[in-house]
Structure formats: structure tokens, C-alpha cells
């Protein structure tokens, strides 16, 4: 199982990022992004440090982290696969593609494969609507994705 316990390096990284961002106007969002970009998620154990530095309550930090779909409070798999569920992709068979992804990975949305390779997420539009259906693996986007192409992407991610 994926452990959300932080390493010493990760704790140090969070402290550095807080120091870097805390004085920016509206610092919380850029800070949360920086933390997730660096260690892959926003650990609840960091809430108290963040709230102190930004003069917020822990509840406020928790409220913001959980409001936004992008932030996660637990480690994701080595790769994140986002499958678009929005109308344009639906018009080109996204529902079947998502069902295929779930079956192939053996997980539902917001879950990670047992080998820790892939976390599956739903996404509502990747802005690739002329080439639907679309998926995103980490930061790379793919258009006109067939189940066969999705299999290849997943195989590559698991390798």
C-alpha cells in the first residue's frame, strides 16, 4: 500500500517551499501546487506548518486543499492517468474508453493499481476537444485515443 508517511527530505522540502512562498499575495494556492509538484501530494501532516506560516487556521488550509480536485492528500501511483469525461469526449466514446481503463487497471477513479504504477482520475476537459477522446498521462496529452492505444500507454507506465 502507498504510505503517506514523509521522509526527512520531504519534510525539509516542505519547510523550504513554505519559506519561499509564504510572503506572496494569495500564497496558499501557489504553495500547495509547489508542495504537490515536489513530493506528489499535500500531506495532512503539513497543514499545521502551513497554517502557522500563512496565519490561517488548520481548518482553512484543509478547506482549500479539499475544495480543489487537483490536490490530493495521499501519495499517487508513479503515474497519473486522467481520462476526460466531458461532453466532447463523450460524443466520441469516452465512456467506453473509461470503462476499458477501469477494467484494464482493475481500479475505479481516484484509486491506484496494486503495483503502485498508475492512479486513475476523471478529468473534465483537457482542451483537446477537436481530437476527442483525450487522456493525459502525467503531463503528456493524447488525442483520438483508442482502447488499443490506451493499453499501450498503460503497459508503458507499468513497465
Amino acid at each position: 500500500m502507498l504510505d503517506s508517511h514523509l521522509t526527512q527530505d520531504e519534510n525539509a522540502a516542505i519547510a523550504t517551499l513554505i519559506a519561499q512562498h509564504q510572503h506572496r499575495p494569495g500564497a496558499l494556492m501557489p504553495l500547495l501546487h509547489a508542495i504537490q509538484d515536489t513530493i506528489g501530494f499535500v500531506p495532512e501532516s503539513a497543514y499545521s506548518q502551513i497554517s502557522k506560516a500563512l496565519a490561517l487556521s488548520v481548518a482553512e488550509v484543509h478547506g482549500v486543499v479539499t475544495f480543489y480536485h487537483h490536490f490530493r492528500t495521499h501519495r499517487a501511483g508513479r503515474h497519473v492517468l486522467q481520462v476526460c469525461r466531458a461532453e466532447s469526449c463523450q460524443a466520441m466514446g469516452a465512456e467506453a474508453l473509461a470503462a476499458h481503463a477501469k477494467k484494464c487497471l482493475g481500479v475505479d477513479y481516484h484509486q491506484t493499481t496494486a503495483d503502485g504504477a498508475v492512479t486513475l482520475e476523471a478529468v473534465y476537459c483537457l482542451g483537446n476537444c477537436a481530437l476527442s477522446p483525450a487522456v493525459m498521462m502525467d503531463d503528456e496529452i493524447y488525442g483520438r485515443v483508442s482502447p488499443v492505444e490506451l493499453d499501450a500507454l498503460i503497459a508503458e507506465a507499468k513497465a
Partner: protein
Amino acid sequence: MVTKVFIPRDSSALSMGAERVAVAVAQEAEKRGLDIVLVRNGSRGLYWLETMVEVLTDKGRVAYGPVKVKDVPSLFDADFLNGKSHALSLGLTEELDWLKKQQRLTFARVGITDPVSLDDYIAHEGYQGLKNALELSGTEIVKTVTDSGLRGRGGAAFPAGIKWNTVLGCEADQKYIVCNADEGDSGTYSDRMIMEGDPFVLIEGMTIAGIAVGATQGYIYLRSEYPHALKTLNEAIANAEKAGYLGDNVLGSSKAFHLEVRRAAGAYVCGEETSLLESLEGKRGLVRFKPPLPAIEGLFGKPTVVNNVISLATVPIILDKGAQYYADYGMGRSRGTLPIQLAGNIKHGGLVELAFGATLRELLYDFGGGSATGRPIRAVQVGGPLGAFLPESQFDTPLDYEEFTKIWAVLGHGGIVAFDDTVDMAKMARYAFEFCAVESCGKCTPCRIGSTRGVEVIDKISATKGSAEHTKSIKLVRDLSDTMLNGSLCALGGMTPYPVLSALNHFPEDFGLPKESKAG
């Protein structure tokens, strides 16, 4: 001789393998000892032809597409570097019918220039608008924007000049320009194309806005689903700063304008301007009550212009060529051009910028070439997930804000999503409620609770066809829609009934009602 080869860095092109094609072209050229300069341009917007590779010849740019990695050696064999013929030849890019029929004002440079090259931008008439603006007073700049008839392209279509004038008239120690780049509507990607294909035009537009109203700080609130746009924008901003187009002393005018990109985090509701401002302030994206208007009390309580990417990116050409030049395009009260995005089940999907007034049918068939599956187009959704579904009988409606209002529809951000005859409209209505439930900020009851109850009622309608319960449920979904329309705080809850009721009214047979009926 060094040959210039253009291969897009646009996300959609990348989604079809543009990066791999670029690498293959560079390697093949090196292998053959040929000297090329690879320019990573934006996309021309003919997405079904991506990856589209262009070569600069003495006759102009010659295009090839769609190019896959496996085609690269044969392109070299055919001497594509001299524009010679190949199975994937498309001819001179400028002569492509799809482009020739368009009126590209906002998108004048997209696909043509290197997006992060300031020299290229300036060589293609860039920064002329700002130069003119610096000669004018704030009031004169605002008047030019007002006279052009430019209305907010994010969806609300509010006159941009009037908004600017309110901010201009406020006394404050700090004002802001905020660009709404949280392009969350399915079927839309024009903001992304600008940010990835011609970011300087947005930077210039925001700078002009800042100079006009006296704002010294700008923020681009960019959706987190656009990592490539983030990279391109940051590169372009750094280049503009280095050259003195941004900073404490814009072009030696002693006027300051600073610009920063802030990432959103996947909440659709943050495309609503007040929710966006909350998010920029580092809070949950809860919608604010209006008044006060953001123009008076916006970001951090200061007067703030909030405009969509396309609105701001259209400002430079207005300041360059004049208000009348822009206003001469369009129909009725919809002046200028609209970058239309063809999406969904469409054969030729892509970006079509046209003066207001073209019909849906022209776009779907003359440009779009019909559905991708080859089946009849049964419905289109215009204006994103909160836009109405239109049946074939409405395809002759001209794209004009007021004409769309007349048929209880919206143009929104100009996205058109086509569906073929396999679509189940009851399922689409259910999805509209479901999406609203997932994305609701939770502040107002009609949206927060109504959306979930809506999913349940649609399920009931589908499960009870032909019974008395069914008739009751149809009435209930209409009552619920009425409550959401009139009782929601923002467009998310307030417009979810558009897709729901338009699906029910135009496609009653999918809800177990007789086809000819006016649906309860």
C-alpha cells in the same frame, strides 16, 4: 541554404505525436547532413491534419499532414524541404480553403510565428497596439475599446469597455488586471491555442488594459490541466520582461505593469469571476454575492478588471487598427469576430475565426465536414456544459449573441460540440446535473442540492416510462429547473437547466415521451 521547418508545440498537436515527429525530423536531417532550423509554432487549428509540418519555400509555406514518425524518411526522400510533392502534401498553407474562408483577427499570428520569439511577434505587427495606447490617455484607450463593440468572450458577453471604465473611474492605491484562463468548458480550446500559439498577444492586451485603467499588476489564472500553456506563457513573460515590455517602466513610459501566471486547481466553478478571485486570494473558490462588482471591489478588495483570454487578446488589434476596423465585422450588437471551436463528433475539428453571423450549419458542414463517424449529426451543444442542446431544425441560427438568446440558447465561449444519432439525450441531461453536482461550490442551495436531486429525477424518468410516476417526474424536473434558473447564485446552477430542458424539449422521445409532443 538553411531551410525553416515548422512543427507545432500546441498541446493538441502534441497529443497526435508532434514532439516525436519533431525529434524524428531533426534526426533525419542530421543523418542526411541537411541544415534545417526547426521552429516550434502554434497550431494553425486544422487539428485533423496534425501533426502538420510546414516548410518555408520561395513560394511560401508548404504544408504536409497528418505526419506520423513513420512518414518522416519518405518526406525527406520526396524532397519536402524544397516543397516537393508527397502523399501527405497539402499545398501552400495560405491557400488551404479552410483557412482562406476565415477572418483571423485575434488569431492573426497563431500557427505562423514562433510563440516565444519576441522578434517574430514584433515582425508580425506585434506591440503596435501598445505603442498606440502609450500615446493615449486612459479615457481614450477605454473609449476605443468601447467603440469597437468588444464584448466579453468568456461567455457573459458584457461590453469590455464599460467594465474597464468602471475600474478607470475608481480611486485606489492598487488595481488589478485578471485574465480568466480557466477555460473549463468542454468543446473549447481557443484560450489554450492563444496561450500556446501567441502568448505575447495576451500579454500585450493585458498591458494595454493595465495602462488604460491604472493597474500595475496582472494575473493570469490558468487551469492546471494546461501544463504546456503554463510553460509557454512563462517563457514569453520572461522574454517580455527582459526586453522592457513588462516591468516598472513599460517601454520607457514610466508606467509599470507586472504579470504573473497563477495555476488553478481543477475546479470548474473558478471560471466564474468572483470564485476565481477567491481562489487567487488563496481561498476555497466560493462564489461571491454581487454587488459589490469586482470592478469596484475585486481582487484583495481592490478595483479589478476580469476578462477572458480572448477578450484581452483581441485588444491589441483594436488599438492597432482602430475601433471602427474591428466594429466593421459582425452583425447586430455582436461586433467583430468570434473564434469558434469545432469539437466532439466532427470530421474536421479545429479553430474557425469568423465575423459573427455565420450559421451553425455552415460551421458543422462547410468547415466541419459533418460527423467523424459519418452518421447524421443529431444534436449540438454550443457554449460548454451550461449551453443548450440544439436540434437540426435550429442549425440555421446565425452565431450572434442575441439570435441565440431568442432560441433560449447561448454562444458562450464559442465551443460547438457535435453528437451523432447514437446520442441518448436523457443521458446527456443526467450528465448535466451530475457535472453540476461534482463542480458546485456549495454556497447556494439550488445548485448544491438541486443538482443531486436532478440526477435522481432523471433516473426516475428513465426507469418509469409510461407510468403516472413518469408524468410526475417530468413535471418535477421542470419545477426543479425553474428553481435552479431563478434561485442560483451564479451561472453554474443557474444555467444547468439549459442543457437539461433543451434536451427534454427538443428530444422528448429520449425521455419516453411522444416525439411530436411538446414534452409535458
